Structure formats: C-alpha cells, structure tokens
C-alpha cells in the first residue's frame, strides 16, 4: 500500500473516531472557550482586547492543541494499535501524514470557532480585505501544528509522564507558529502595525515551518514509534 493511500486511510479513521467520540466538541471546545473568556476577564479593556485578540486566539489554539494531540495518541496507544500498525509494516510516513492531516482539520475547526468567539467576546472587527491572508495563514499554521504535534505526540507515546512531557517539549517548538500566525492575523484584521505585505512574509515563515517539519517528521516518525513499540 502506498504512503498516500495510508495517509488517506489513517486520516479518515482518526476523523471518524473524533466524530464518534466527540472529544473536540465536548472537551476541547469548552476548554478553549473558557480560556478565551478568562483572557477577556484578565485584560478587561476593549481596546487592548481588540489589539491582542489575534495572539489570544492562537494561544488558546496552542493550549487546546495539547489536548487534541494527547487524545490522538491515546487512541493509538490504548489497545496497542500504533504498535500493531508498525508491526503490520504499514508505512510510517503514511501514518505520520494521516494523523497530521486529521489533527490539522480538527485545529481548523477549532480556530474557526475561536475566531468567531473573538468577534463576539473581544469585539474584533473584520472588513474582509484580509480574508485570503487570514484563511491562508490559518491553513499554513494548522498544517505546521498538525505536523509538529504528530511528531511530538509520537515521541512521547509510551513514555512515563507523557501528559506533562508533551507540553514541555511541544510548546517551545511551536513558538514560531504562535509568532508567525499572530502577526499574519494582525495584518489580516488590520490591528497593530503590520502591513498586508508583512503579513504574507509571516505566512511564508509558517509554510517553511510546515515544510521543515513535514520533511523531518517523515524521516523521524518511523524510528521514533518503532523505538517505543
């Protein structure tokens, strides 16, 4: 079976499991919503909230992503399915890209709802001029987060204390995505002093980040999960 076919198979399986278990809807979204509300309480200044809304949305995305990544690998580790996939000789690249794709789709859903929450809670405004930039930056950031989340999720699967180890390892590594996505979103929403042109430069960084982790993960994921099998 080709890696591309495995990618589609694994992504469809992960999304079906999510639809069945509704962890994103029942656990992650309420967590993200509470985070957004708490940010509003903590800052409590409309102008400030409007200005920092992009950063808060992406911070809430990163925190929520930790839950999604842990869930994605708990599903695999619960009954030894990830080990079984490797034992069955299923290409590791396909597993890696499939899980990353499913993760990216879930993050896109999450980001859409978080942006909607930002418009309601923080009175963010959006005139539509930066819509293409906003969508592209969200897509690039979600791909990058999906790829890096899958790599580190695989790394910590089967290790003791993985619940605390994952954030410790993952959060510093996703800092470029937080910075790049926040700046690009600021440009798209017209807050801060970022021009649209600069916004696209930040999108280029997000794409480069995703490409680097895509290449690195496709090489490293197999040996990583083999070592834990």
């Amino acid at each position, binding site marked *: *079976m080709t890696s591309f076919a495995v990618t589609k198979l694994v992504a469809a399986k992960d999304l079906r*499991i999510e639809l069945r278990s509704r962890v994103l809807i029942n656990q992650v979204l309420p967590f993200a919503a509470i985070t957004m509300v708490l940010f509003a309480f903590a800052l409590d200044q409309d102008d400030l909230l409007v200005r920092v809304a992009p950063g808060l949305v992406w911070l809430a995305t990163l925190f929520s992503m930790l839950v999604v990544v842990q869930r994605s690998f708990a599903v695999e580790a619960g*009954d030894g399915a990830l080990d079984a996939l490797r*034992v*069955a*000789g299923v290409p590791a690249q396909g597993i890696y890209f499939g899980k990353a794709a499913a993760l990216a789709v879930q993050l896109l859903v999450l980001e859409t709802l978080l942006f909607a929450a930002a418009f309601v809670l923080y009175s963010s405004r959006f005139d539509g001029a930066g819509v293409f930039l906003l969508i592209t930056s969200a897509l690039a950031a979600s791909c990058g987060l999906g790829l890096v989340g899958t790599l580190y999720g695989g790394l910590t699967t089967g290790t003791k204390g993985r619940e605390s180890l994952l954030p410790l390892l993952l959060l510093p590594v996703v800092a470029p995505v937080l910075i790049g996505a926040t700046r690009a979103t600021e440009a798209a929403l017209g807050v801060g002093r970022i021009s649209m042109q600069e916004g696209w430069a930040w999108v280029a960084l997000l794409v480069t980040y995703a490409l680097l982790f895509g290449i690195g993960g496709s090489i490293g994921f197999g040996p990583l999960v083999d070592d834990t099998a």
Partner: protein
Amino acid sequence: METDPVVQLVDVVAVLDRFPALAGATLTVHRGEIVLLTGPNGAGKTTLLRLCAGLLPPARGTAMVLGLDLVEQREAVRSRVGLLGHSNGLYTDLTITENVAFWGATVGASAEEVSAAVERMGLAGRLSDVPVRKLSAGQRRRTALACLIARRAELWLLDEPHAGLDAAGRDELDTVLRAATAAGATMIVASHEMERAGALATRMVEVAGGQIRGQIRGQESGTP
C-alpha cells in the same frame, strides 16, 4: 509430505538491551502447523515471536520467515505476519466492521473479504456494528483475529492468547483458531497454559535460556 518452511531459524542470537534474549535458537515451522512455545518467564518466547514478526533484528545466525530474510527484508515480512500480543490493536470507538475494514484496507482487502473475516470469527450480524469498547474480552480477541484474516496474515504469532479470557471465551478462541488453521494459517503460540494450548497445538517446543531445548510433543512436519 514436506512443505516449504514458513519459519526457519538457525542458531539465531537476538540482543535486547545488551542482554542476549535469544542465544542460538534453532527452529523450523512448516505451513499449517500450530507450534506451542512453552517455558518459564524470561525464557525468550516473546522475543522469538517479536523476532519472527520482524520487530527485532537477529544479531547473528540465519533467520528466514515466509522465505524472506529477517535482516534484509524486515518490512516485507511485517506486512505478511500477524502478531497478537497482550493488546488487541483495536480502535475501541470504532465498530467491529470498521476495525476489520481498516486493517483490511492496509493490504487492499475488498469489502467481501472484510465481511468474510467478520463472519469467520462469528461476529456477523448486529454485533458487527457494536463499538469495540462495548465488547467482552473474548469478542475483542475474535475481532483482533478477524483483523489478522482481513490483513491476509500468513503466519500468526500469538502471545498468551488465552490471557484475560474466561472459560467460555477460551473455548470460543480455541474454536476460531482451529478453524483458521484448517483454512491454511500457520501459528506460533507462546503460552504458559500447556494443557489448553497444548490441546490446540500440533507440536510443543520448550524454550529456555533463549534456546530451543527440545520437542515436548509432536515432530516437525516432514521429519521422518
């Protein structure tokens, strides 16, 4: 009648954490056999299964599985071998059919093959649409075996297959394993339960100190 060996290990050494878990193991298994590995904990039974599954490379000796070299062609071996250890490798939020279809899809199995695998394990009907998390331990084991069938595994490596099952579940498992062997599967079973697993096996082999010490019962098919 002699058949091509499915497993042929000659003086195989395998190292786990610098410890020689297999220390010169020699074993030949022919198509259609059910070989029971017995021996104390730490004897090397599980290591032998993992080696045959292509998870552990031999450090020395000759190791061929399904005619493929375990050093040079490990990935190819993996795709044709099924290892069922203490866990079942199932997705508990998916139904029986969805699990079997997923594993079957990894080798391009058709919907008919998936249905046949589910039926052969006695899981057809309304049960096939039940999520795995709602199944008994015995039903989960049968689902895992249906996945092996859908994956077209030619060599089944079973590590303590009766563990965690009640008496009815063990009987069910024995029935489906016999049926699978009758349909052409070859099995190596590691178990402490000599009486039950022994009744299932065509040959019993003792493993101790990382070596095959001898045959307790039966003889290699094709051996005069």
